[in-house]
């Protein structure tokens, strides 16, 4: 019989080795699948995957932007997760921030100076995201409702609000799309730095990353969040107002999501669609978990996920494969990476019988 027991702590070097081994195994399995199903040389496929993210300078910057956006959502979710509050509403909170940003760009572009427009967007987008997160938080704090379901359902409400607004703002009657906002004037667009459209987004998210690290690791709030996450009773015993911490943390979580929505609309897409968040609210959960809620480690895990997604896109284009094929490879790789965490946290004892005999 195999006996599973929890490990105390695996040395960092050993843990990294397990993870690298898992990735190597994943690539091997992917290679076998590729050859069996398509007859292509797996090395060509991997090379093309690499091309998807690093092939040209433009792709490289697109990748950095994607990493920044995903990282920003993941950072937003982290304080809530540390508190064991399962905020699955990132998608909706991003959309609300995006919606408010788009509303400002569409309705206020002619009314207020651009500087004021930016101030309004920078304030209102996080506020919208924060409100969207605060509603489930208040219900949790007050009536102990299930935050997983509540935050999840708030996503659908946000999607419908966006869908409604799109019909109000649509560019051609009945087309169901807003199109590029302020395309000719570029009012409310985050400026390019030099020639680079995305550098500012990357820098802003880098700031958020550092700030989140400091907040979680070196502030009283961060400590309170950790204590509430470990044990609500301990927190109460220490005199921490648990409900206040819950609501406050979710306000922060939602605000950073809302800020991401601002980055997407003002900085990247310059439009609003119901799928603008692109699943980042959910992928961000994985990014945060893989990185054990460490903001700097999240840079790595968001890079990994974006790299695989862009690689999958590139494969489907370069080899004329269905996009689903790239998704299969991504799925296999994720399976191994997540699976490796099991072997880092648990030990398999194959001589379990002997041990039992002694007991």
């Amino acid at each position, binding site marked *: 019989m195999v006996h599973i027991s929890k490990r105390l702590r695996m040395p960092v070097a050993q843990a990294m080795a397990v993870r690298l081994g898992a990735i190597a195994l994943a690539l091997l399995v992917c290679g076998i699948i590729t050859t069996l199903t398509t007859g292509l040389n797996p090395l060509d496929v991997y090379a093309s995957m690499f091309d998807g993210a690093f092939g040209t300078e433009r792709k490289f910057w697109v990748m950095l932007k994607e990493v920044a956006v995903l990282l920003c959502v993941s950072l937003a979710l982290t304080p809530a997760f540390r508190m064991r509050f399962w905020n699955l509403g990132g998608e909706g909170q991003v959309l609300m921030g995006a919606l408010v940003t788009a509303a400002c760009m569409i309705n206020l572009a002619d009314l207020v100076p651009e500087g004021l427009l930016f101030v309004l967007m920078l304030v209102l987008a996080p506020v919208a995201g924060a409100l969207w997160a605060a509603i489930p938080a208040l219900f949790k704090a007050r009536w102990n409702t299930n935050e997983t379901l509540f935050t999840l359902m708030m996503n659908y409400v946000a999607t419908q609000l966006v869908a409604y607004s799109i019909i109000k703002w649509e560019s*051609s009657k009945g087309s169901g799309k807003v199109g590029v906002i302020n395309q000719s004037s570029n009012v409310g667009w985050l400026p390019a730095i030099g020639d680079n459209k995305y550098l500012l987004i990357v820098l802003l998210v880098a700031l958020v990353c550092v700030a989140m690290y400091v907040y979680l690791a070196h502030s009283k709030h961060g400590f309170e969040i950790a204590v509430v996450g470990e044990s609500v009773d301990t927190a109460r015993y220490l005199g921490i107002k648990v409900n206040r911490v819950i609501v406050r943390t979710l306000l922060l979580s939602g605000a950073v999501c809302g800020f991401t929505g601002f980055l997407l609309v003002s900085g990247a897409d*310059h439009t609003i669609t119901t*799928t603008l968040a692109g699943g980042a609210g959910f992928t961000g959960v994985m990014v945060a978990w893989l990185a054990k809620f460490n903001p700097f480690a999240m840079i790595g895990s968001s890079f990994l996920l974006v790299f695989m*997604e862009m690689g999958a896109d590139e494969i*489907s284009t370069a080899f*004329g494969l269905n*996009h689903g094929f790239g998704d299969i490879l991504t799925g296999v790789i994720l399976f191994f990476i997540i699976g490796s965490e099991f072997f880092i946290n648990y030990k398999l004892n194959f001589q379990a019988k002997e041990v039992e005999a002694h007991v």
Partner: protein
Amino acid sequence: MKQISMDRRQALKLGMGSAAALALTACKTGKDGGSGAAPAKDAKVGLICLHDENSPYDRNFLDAFNKAVEQLGLNPDSCLVKTNIPEGQECYDAAAELADAGCVAVVADSNGHEDYILQAASEFPEVHFCSATGTKAHTSGLDNFHNAFASIYEGRYLTGVAAGMKLKELADAGKLKGAAPKIGYVGAYPYAEVISGYTSFYLGVKSVMPDVTMDVTYTGTWYDEAAEKEAANKLMEDGADLISQHADSMGAPTACENAGVVDVAYNGSIIDACPKTSLISAAINWEPYFAYFFKAAQEGSTIDADWTGSLKDGSVVLTELNKDIAAAGTAEKLEEIKAKLEDGSLHVFDTTTFTVNGKQLDSYQADVDDDAEHKGDTEVVADGYFHESEKRSAPYFDLKIDGINLVESKQ
């Protein structure tokens, strides 16, 4: 990951492998040579598709692209295709990448790509861009930004005639579900392109069956197989004797095949996938435009800002008629009507054949410029008919005519 949206993952099983393989081989192994006066062979051209070959809409573009590449004798390695490009910043990125790669001409296949293509066009003035089905080129003021469409309403009308004859056959055999014939139509959005399409189809049916009515339902998406299937099922439950659609997946045709109700497809024959029920389809053949556009871009000659293909130049085609289910004499009738449409003796939107709110249409200001105001700016009714796709290529007929009912509209 980005793009969780369903559409990317929906794989349809309509000989997709073969279509993809064909498309690819045409691209990869397309033989050199081609027509005598072929332009420089090293020129690169690009195509951006919203979905991939699993969507009949996109497959239609992919096929035409490969044929045009072959026709012009271009080096197949220089035909770059980007599939599954959403209508967002990704489209700009894709267009910019194609420009970086040295393409002289780039086409995007979806209406929602337009703004992003426009953005790319303003940044890469040396590259010609076309937003197919778009509306903004004629007012954009850019020399390198273009739109193209075809008078597809004529094709729709013809398929409507085929459908009408089938309904007549059903009526004569006493097989209609209700007293009067009824059609169901699955549309994507209440957008002029869709409205023009179903109205012309309806008028074609009506020319054969004057008492026909049509229920239209919108799915609120261009591609959602489940929603389109559900919409078609609902329409059939509500008494539709025949279905047609303007949405890009195989949802509605599959529902029809399962229910044994005749379906008129759009933008490609699907008789292989639905042999029992798929009657015919009207399609835009993009090959003539692609050949013209790519050649002109290479040679540096002037390209129309707004190009409208027609029945005559082969841009509007009817795909194979399913002889097993078509009513007797359909093929001959279609030839006859087609000839009349081509010589101008018959007009699809002849104002004596339909009414709006009980009245004949004498005048209509259409929103041709498609500016922010959404107001009519051009008179389009003259000489007894509505002049569709003449003031600009993309359709602008957006009236609700009598006999067509909107049901369960999601918009």
